[in-house]
């Protein structure tokens, strides 16, 4: 791992838990609410992940 997480953490973002929580709140809101249907969001997510070669 290029940047070590803090003790007890799992990723670099555990160094900034409040900021990461705000990011996850936005991410979760975009997934669970809004006018766009889930399959459309998932299609876009998969396409974006393929373009940037993201394994998530």
């Amino acid at each position, binding site marked *: 791992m*290029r940047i*070590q997480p803090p003790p007890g953490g799992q990723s670099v973002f*555990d160094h*900034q838990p409040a900021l990461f929580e*705000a990011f996850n*709140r936005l991410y979760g809101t975009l997934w669970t609410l809004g006018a766009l249907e889930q399959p459309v969001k998932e299609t876009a997510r998969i396409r974006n992940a393929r373009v*940037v070669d993201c394994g998530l």
Partner: protein
Amino acid sequence: MTVDAFATWLPVAPAGDEPVDVFDLLTAGGDELRTLWDMVWTADVDHRTLELCRTRIATMVAGAPTPSSDAVTDAQRAAVAFAEQFVLDPHGCTDEQMLGLQDHYTPEQLATLTIAIAVFDALARVHAVLAQPEEDVQ
């Protein structure tokens, strides 16, 4: 520093010449985005570095004007180089580059910087896609 409003071609935007905050058009997520934006700017990376990264990304993504060539520190230069590589190809960020960043920034600051760059990149792309062409804005 607030999320900039801009004129959009979206047909659901209010008529007229006044720029709208495109995030007000979201049925969900606008408030969360503004909260994240505010937190990025009030965290532990200095405004000058963040603004250099933001303007560089805007230049790359949306064709915005090139930022001024004011003197920058080695730390700021490293941050901007990280921002550039993040936008171009995140897999191109090398171990050497990431180690070099740690000469200037703590892990806490790098967590902030990475999220900040991700937000700047995302919003620059939103602007590039949704903003009215400049020639259409009076």
